[in-house]
């Protein structure tokens, strides 16, 4: 095994670790944030950042061209559909009269 493939291997492991970290942080954010819109913010941002790192890490790990293309397609579709779904969800919530509550809560607490 030459040095170059070792370097690629290490880069792919680092990328996947960063991606796993982002995903986990997104999960914690969606659990701990105070109201719906902030929870959606945490979840949707990390749902874009995590897949970028994890899937690029997987692509670097593979030898097969077909698998790399398929994973890249998955990444492109996630990056297109994820934010769109978040947008549609926020539209639905606003439509039904769900207001961001954080500012209101702060003023009442003081």
């Amino acid at each position, binding site marked *: 095994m030459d040095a170059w493939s070792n370097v690629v291997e290490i880069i792919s492991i680092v990328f996947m670790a960063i991606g796993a970290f982002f995903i986990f942080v997104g999960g914690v954010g969606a659990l701990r944030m105070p109201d719906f819109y902030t929870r959606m913010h945490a*979840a949707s941002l990390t749902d874009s950042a995590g897949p970028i790192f994890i899937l690029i890490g997987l692509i670097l*790990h593979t030898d097969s061209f077909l698998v790399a293309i*398929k994973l890249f397609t998955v990444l492109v*579709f996630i990056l297109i559909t994820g934010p769109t*779904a978040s947008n549609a969800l926020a539209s639905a919530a606003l439509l*039904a009269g769900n207001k961001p509550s954080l500012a209101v809560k702060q003023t009442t607490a003081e």
Partner: protein
Amino acid sequence: MIFYIVAFALVITMCLALVRAVRGPGLYDRVLAVNMMGTKTVLLLAVIAYIMGRPDYIDLALAYALINFIGVFAVLEFFRTRESQLALTSSTTQSGQEKALDEQGGQS
């Protein structure tokens, strides 16, 4: 080994999203949790393909990546038609009714 770590992080995050889905409090938190679970499942399927050494499993991840968002659009359409029906039947406090609906969802 790194695949197992990533898969484990994904499964743990799915547990967190499930807690959000079960506890609520509103209706939209459930939809958000479904959406999160969808993305995590796509990644989990891709990682399983590597763990098991089966490249054809990535087709499944592709299928989920393509059609997972249809459910959220259906939710938007559901609330849109409901809103317009409420506007037709009673032109008074439509958002108030929706808010009552939302609160009842939170209690259960």
